[in-house]
């Protein structure tokens, strides 16, 4: 009954209702589209961070993060990894060795960063996109995959020999020959110029690390993950072992902070947009209740309770809010579908604050954006309508019925 009355009342002033609904839908559309775009970009950046070199959580040797020294390793990495897997059965883990060396081919040479990876256990595509040749084989065979910039500088291609020369953790002279099996894009200009990937066992032997590893990368399954919580859980699980546990947000605090700040700014924009819409709603609802003073007076004279009058006005506004929300969502979905995928390859290149920027964004309505717009719409409609509704419900029947 209340709904039917409210619905009928809305269409007594069609133009006003349509304007209110349109204002609301524009607000919803703006918020949902912007939020979803921003979240898509952040999700991609986080995915880039966690899929690539950093992972969701890292287990490292004591003091490694402060001063990454070749000799600071997770000793007995296999044992630590086993305990880690027992604590987090669903997570993926991966050991890494990181060291510096000089790479030479013919009479050319360059300083390089040597990364020992587990080829069978690594999402190779996230670290490096092979452009020529093939990825590393599953067994240690002194093979190397090099960044494209480095390959150009040294003049090497798959099938060529690469000599690595450096200092091992025990002070000995690390030197050996490797076979270049692949050349690829390691994600950024800088990484391409210095990256050499080898099998972790080859790297451990080259740098005299026995079975130590510099990092054990933990990747959490699914989308909604809690790296900080997991890091805390792992600290307990690995208590007593000489290791440190870090979540990616602690490893790249600037990136994490920047993302959080941008989200806060987005919420401020939401607030301002809806403040404007709320004032509009307040205005139209106030106008509407003034115009209907006599009507409310008659209703009250006929015995309609105050609460019912208040409910009627609020219901009318909420219906407008629901219509605006639905229309806005539809418009936002249409816009995102029309824009997606967004090609960013020409806009951003390389790393920003340590995270690889995505080449393209797949846009879709983000759940958090819907929630944010929904809650804000409801609050806006209530804020804009409660005061006029309360006023309408407090009218004195005799005076109001005579109001012209």
């Amino acid at each position, binding site marked *: 009954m209340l709904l039917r009355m409210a619905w009928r009342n809305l269409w007594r002033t069609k133009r006003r209702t349509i304007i209110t609904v349109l204002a609301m839908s524009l607000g919803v559309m703006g918020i949902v589209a912007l939020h979803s775009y921003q979240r898509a970009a952040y999700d991609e950046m986080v995915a880039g961070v966690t899929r690539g070199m950093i992972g969701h959580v890292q287990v490292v040797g004591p003091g490694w993060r402060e001063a990454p020294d070749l*000799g600071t390793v997770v000793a007995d990495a296999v044992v630590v990894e086993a305990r880690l897997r027992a604590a987090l059965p669903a997570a993926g883990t991966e050991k890494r060795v990181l060291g510096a060396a*000089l790479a*030479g081919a013919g*009479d*050319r*040479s*360059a*300083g390089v960063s040597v990364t020992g990876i587990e080829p069978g256990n690594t999402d190779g595509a996230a670290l490096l996109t092979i452009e020529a040749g093939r990825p590393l084989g599953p067994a240690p065979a002194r093979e190397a995959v090099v960044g494209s910039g480095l390959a150009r500088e040294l003049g090497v291609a798959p099938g060529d*020999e690469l*000599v*690595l*020369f450096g*200092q*091992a*953790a*025990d*002070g*000995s*002279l*690390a*030197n*050996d*020959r490797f076979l270049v099996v692949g050349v690829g894009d390691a994600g950024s200009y800088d990484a391409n110029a210095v990256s050499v990937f080898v099998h972790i066992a080859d790297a451990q032997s080259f740098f005299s690390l026995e079975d130590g590893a510099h990092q054990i990368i933990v990747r959490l399954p699914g989308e909604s993950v809690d790296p900080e919580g997991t890091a805390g859980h792992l600290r307990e699980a690995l208590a007593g072992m000489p290791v440190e546990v870090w979540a990616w947000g602690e490893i790249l605090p600037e990136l994490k902070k920047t993302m959080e700040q941008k989200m806060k700014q987005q919420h401020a924009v939401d607030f301002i947009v809806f403040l404007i819409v709320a004032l509009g709603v307040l205005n139209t609802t106030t106008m509407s209740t003034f115009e209907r003073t006599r009507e409310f007076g008659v209703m009250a004279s006929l015995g309609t309770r105050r609460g019912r009058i208040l409910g009627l006005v609020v219901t009318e506004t909420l219906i407008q809010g629901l219509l605006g929300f639905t229309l806005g969502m539809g418009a936002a979905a249409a816009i995102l579908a029309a824009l997606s995928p967004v090609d960013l390859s020409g806009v951003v290149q390389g790393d920003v604050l340590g995270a690889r920027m995505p080449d393209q964004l797949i846009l879709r309505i983000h759940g958090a954006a819907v929630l944010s717009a929904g809650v804000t719409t409801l609050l806006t409609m209530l804020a804009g309508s409660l005061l006029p509704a309360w006023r309408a419900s407090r009218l004195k029947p005799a005076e109001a019925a005579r109001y012209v």
Partner: protein
Amino acid sequence: MFRLLTAMLPAVLLLLPAAAQAADAPPPGLPACPTKTEKPEVAPLLERMEQMMDGRSSVATMTMRIKTESWSRTLKMKTWSKGEDYALIRVLEGGPRETGMMTLKREKQLWNYLPQAGRVMKLPSGMMGDSWMGSDFTNDDLVGGNSVSRDFDSEVLGTVRHEGRDAWRIRLTPRPSAAVVWESIEVVLDRATCVPLEQRFYDEGQTLARTMSFGDVRTLGWRHFPGRMAVKPADEKRETVIEYEDIRFDVEIPDSTFSLHRLQQGR
């Protein structure tokens, strides 16, 4: 780095200079060591020092001990040097990965022979400031491209007692055109022999970066020569010490000793 260092290090590693003259006859026109003068003129003083360390050729065997917090290593090495431009170091005894390692200096270029890889690698110019073989000597120290008289403004600051010996303190400041990484270098020079006793290398902001000390001064004909030298970085608990077992100056060394082709063959 510069000739002074070359002078010592030198003396030590590659650039072991040998006198062009007979070992017991100083070169003509060599300034005397102004032992009795409190504040001697700096130019002849440094000229004597450079001349004393500068020469035509040398062959030496020495032991290098590198000691760090986590490891220590001893390398027995033989060095050949000819003038300023050619030198070869060969590791005679060390760990299995180092024995047979060679470093060849040809003019301004450094080449390493890597015994495990069985290959030769040229050192990029950007790596000249890096450590040689994990020691506290840099590759740049070995190349010794600077000269005290050409690249530094120098000044005798005064006299000082250094470990029981009378010495002068000399400050060297790189000229703007010189490719020197240090902001200044202080040399403590023995008044009796004109042999350096200590060198202190200062970074930007006059922060002490490393100290090189010399000892076991030997007399070889007219020259005095430090048979032991130690390098200690200021901010790390590590040290590299070189001790000579044998050194001969003014020896005929065939050019083929410094041949890149020969290095590539690991000979």
